[in-house]
């Protein structure tokens, strides 16, 4: 079997309460793997530690145990190979749409000349349909547009894996649907590998190939793994007509709810 | 101010003043000028008249120093710093300053020379106009607050002398503060101080502004007392002897010109503008001609209110040194003659004066009469001990 692109082995994270000095286990001994071109989602309630897990994979937080492998090699520091799309966009507010993407492209391809960089930036601006707004600053954009910039930025550096941290949580429900579809389109077009954390059950079912269910903390675990049976292209309209969708949905909600109560 | 131990002072002087070398240059130097465009520092008071007037009236140029300019300093500390750090080549100083600099009193010790006196007389005790008719002598001044421009100044020493002769202890019975001259007038007007012994034109200015009156001219304390001087570092004189001689000559020349009464009005006009004294011309004229209103309602004619005589009597230096010792500015034993002769260059001034065709005194020492009391320069220690009010035993 082909080696997974991303392998997380036995990763743990502990926090120390600064006042009581009690050690608090966020999660311990988590393992998962992601194959190339897969779209994997981790689903769990807020506060279960899924963002922490993503940060550890990204390298912007340190774990208290376990290893993360990318292409079979241990990762230590953050890098362009594991580009992140942030929940609150993390765009540089003093740079325009173009400027933000250019910042990433320049960092990823330092040896490219100006023309090549400009071409790449333009390509990704177009890919997210922001050509009209390319000179605007983030403050002048809506939430949905800002995340499109975030996505364009991430795609433009062609990372080995894209890490999405609740990417649409701060976008209004109406826009969310549109962007979700765009994301799937871009994923299919580029063949990139995506690892996403989310608390939205529908979103997980709609977008991903596999869903990993994370129990609430402390001491969270990846209790169940579900392969999404619905064929692509998936749209909300089609899914809501499929009774299997509701069954799956209820099962997941019950699983999470039951675990919550317990 | 810092008091310097005498042995340290002597060691310093011994290092810097091999006797022979100090005499050599003034006589021989007659080669080309090492530097022509000098910067000469001055304080904008009438004491510096010869130094200042030599610029617009061409005395520097006459002796080959083309491009020499006089540069205005805001205060004595600034002049001292400029002279020590060589931002000016030579400077107008108070006559005790070269002595203090050489001894390292109140500054790092740097050997300085005083080749010529700039002015004699030229100061006054000015009092707030509320004391008109009320203050007759020093005794009436107990409890007063006075100002002087600097600690190492004839103003300070003359004021102290005057007060002490009247039985008033200048350290205990009055307050003496160091204040820049324009602030003296402002303070007088505001009533913050009772009087000051200051250089002109600030005494006449007080009358002009209606703030005070002239109580006593210093001419009447010690007729012919030295006040300000032309000073240069020993380094300047040694490294650039020809230039030094040229400046020396320019100033001796200018001083003699200023001494003549008929020239005073012309000089007042030349030195009053903004880039020199920056004072109203009428005030400067009143000071220089000695025809002035005294603020008591009368007009006085005192043509030697200020006078100009370059000869730096070594005995004057000794007097200054006795006063420095008397008030505790210098402690320990002082070799009066040695220090006086190394700093106040009476012999060299004589040769320059004669070289330029002026008459010079035959001796370097003479007795001086100050407020009726004779000062014998050969008996400095006895002189100090003869004062009831003093800070030494």
């Amino acid at each position, binding site marked *: 079997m082909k080696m997974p692109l991303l392998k997380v082995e036995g990763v743990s994270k502990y926090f120390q309460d600064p006042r009581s000095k009690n050690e608090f286990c966020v999660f311990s001994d988590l393992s998962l793997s992601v194959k190339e071109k897969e779209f994997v989602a981790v689903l769990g309630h807020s506060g279960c530690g899924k963002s922490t897990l993503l940060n550890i994979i990204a390298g912007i937080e340190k774990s208290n145990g376990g290893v993360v492998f990318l292409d079979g090699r241990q990762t230590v520091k953050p*890098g362009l190979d594991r580009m*992140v799309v942030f929940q609150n966009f993390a765009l540089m507010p003093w740079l325009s749409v173009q400027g933000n993407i250019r910042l990433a492209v320049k960092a990823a391809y330092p040896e490219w000349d100006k023309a090549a960089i400009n071409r790449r930036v333009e390509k990704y601006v177009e890919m997210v349909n922001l050509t009209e707004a390319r000179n605007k*600053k983030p403050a002048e954009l809506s939430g949905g547009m800002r995340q499109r910039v975030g996505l364009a930025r991430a795609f433009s550096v062609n990372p080995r894996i894209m890490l999405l941290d609740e990417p649409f949580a701060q976008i209004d429900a109406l826009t969310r649907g549109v962007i979700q579809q765009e994301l799937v389109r871009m994923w299919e077009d580029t063949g990139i590998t995506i690892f996403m954390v989310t608390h939205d059950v529908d979103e997980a079912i709609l977008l991903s190939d596999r869903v990993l269910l994370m129990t609430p903390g402390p001491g969270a675990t990846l209790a169940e793994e579900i392969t999404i049976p619905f064929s692509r292209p998936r749209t909300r309209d089609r899914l809501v007509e499929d009774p299997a969708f509701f069954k799956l949905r209820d099962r997941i909600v019950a699983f999470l709810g039951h675990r919550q109560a317990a | 101010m810092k008091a310097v131990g005498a042995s340290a002072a002597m060691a310093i002087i011994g290092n810097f003043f091999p006797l022979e070398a100090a005499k050599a240059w003034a006589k021989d130097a007659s080669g080309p000028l090492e530097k022509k465009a000098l910067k000469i520092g001055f304080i904008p008071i009438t004491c510096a008249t010869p130094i200042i007037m030599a610029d617009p009236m061409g005395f520097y140029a006459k002796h080959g120093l083309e491009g020499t300019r006089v*540069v205005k*300093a805001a205060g004595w500390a600034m002049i001292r710093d400029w002279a020590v750090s060589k931002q000016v080549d030579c400077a107008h100083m108070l006559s005790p300053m070269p002595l203090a600099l050489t001894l390292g009193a109140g500054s790092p010790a740097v050997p300085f020379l005083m080749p010529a006196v700039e002015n004699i007389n030229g100061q006054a005790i000015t009092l707030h106009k509320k004391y008109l008719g009320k203050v007759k002598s020093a005794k009436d001044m107990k409890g007063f607050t006075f100002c002087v421009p600097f600690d190492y100044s004839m103003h300070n020493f003359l004021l102290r002398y005057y007060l002490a002769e009247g039985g008033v202890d200048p350290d205990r019975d009055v307050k003496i503060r160091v204040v820049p001259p324009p602030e003296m007038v402002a303070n007088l007007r505001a009533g913050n101080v009772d009087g000051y012994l200051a250089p002109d034109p600030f005494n006449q200015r007080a009358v002009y502004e209606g703030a005070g009156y002239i109580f006593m001219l210093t001419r009447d304390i010690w007729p012919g007392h030295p006040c300000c001087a032309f000073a240069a570092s020993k380094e300047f004189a040694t490294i650039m002897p020809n230039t030094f001689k040229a400046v020396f000559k320019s100033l001796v020349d200018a001083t003699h010109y200023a001494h003549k009464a008929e020239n005073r009005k012309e000089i007042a006009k030349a030195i009053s*503008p903004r880039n020199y004294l920056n004072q109203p011309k009428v005030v400067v004229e009143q000071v220089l001609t000695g025809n002035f209103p005294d603020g008591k309602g009368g007009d006085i004619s005192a043509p030697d209110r200020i006078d100009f005589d370059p000869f730096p009597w070594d005995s004057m230096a000794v007097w200054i040194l006795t006063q420095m010792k008397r008030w505790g500015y210098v402690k320990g034993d002082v070799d009066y003659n040695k220090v006086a002769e190394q700093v106040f260059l009476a012999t060299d001034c004589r040769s320059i004066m004669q070289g330029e065709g002026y008459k010079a005194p035959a001796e370097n020492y003479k007795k001086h009469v100050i407020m009726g009391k004779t000062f014998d320069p050969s008996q400095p220690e006895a002189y100090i001990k003869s004062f009831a009010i003093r800070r030494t035993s």
Partner: protein
Amino acid sequence: MSNSNPSTLSVSSAAAVPPSGGAAAKKRAMLKAVDPGPARSAAGSLGQRVGGNWMVLSLFCLLLFLALWQRYSTVGNEKFPSPVVVAEHAWYFLSDPFYDNGPNDQGIGYLVGFSLGRLAVGFLAGSVVAVFLGVVLGLNRTLFKALNPYIQVLRAISPIAWMPLLLYTVQNSGWTALLVVFMASMWPTLANTAFGVNNIKKEYLNVAAILQMPTLAKVFRVILPGAGPAIVAGLRISMGSAWVAIVPAEALLGSLGLGYFVWNEWNNLGIANVIFAILLIGAVGVMLDMLFNRLAKSLAYTD
């Protein structure tokens, strides 16, 4: 210029405005520069009226002040110069700004130039050092905490208090003046830069880390722009502090400039000229601040 007799303008009405010329006119001209003009767009007549009012009030305050000054300067025998006299003296200098009468007396244009020149050099040097140190401290919390107490102490010391020490070590008035400006420019900028860098959103630094930006690129592309508004705020305060320091420094060091002008005129008890100098110093200070205002606006960003 000796003190001339104060003129006796009637001040019975607020329209008793001193004749144009000099400092008063300068002030009014500046006010007008800030005034965008009477023709506003159709923003609603109520808004127009409210907006217009502050300028009228400001002008009224100025005229009232001038009128009171004119009135009381002729009272008593203090000979305090009236606005008219000050304006006359001001005009004397402003009408011939570039004369040269030797090293002790030069035109006001030159004097302002010298002061600004000194300010520019000292301020630039101080700012570069301060921003550099501020970035270093902002990125390293431990170092910042360790050095912060000393920074606070140094910040509290008036730049003029450094002068005797500097003069003693450096032995040169020109350099001392520059160093005084340097010291004045350092601390507010340093403190603000460190604060700004420290408070950059962690996300921006995370992005920089993920993009594997080399340190220099990170500093110039992320950290400095991110801390930009705080840095400019610090620079603005430093500039004010430096301009305030330079005038007494010049007066105490004898360097040709506005400070020297103040002292020289004070020596002649020329109060009118001293007032003119004060107004000029204030005017230049305001212009410098306006420059920084522009800079601040261009570097501001909304998160």
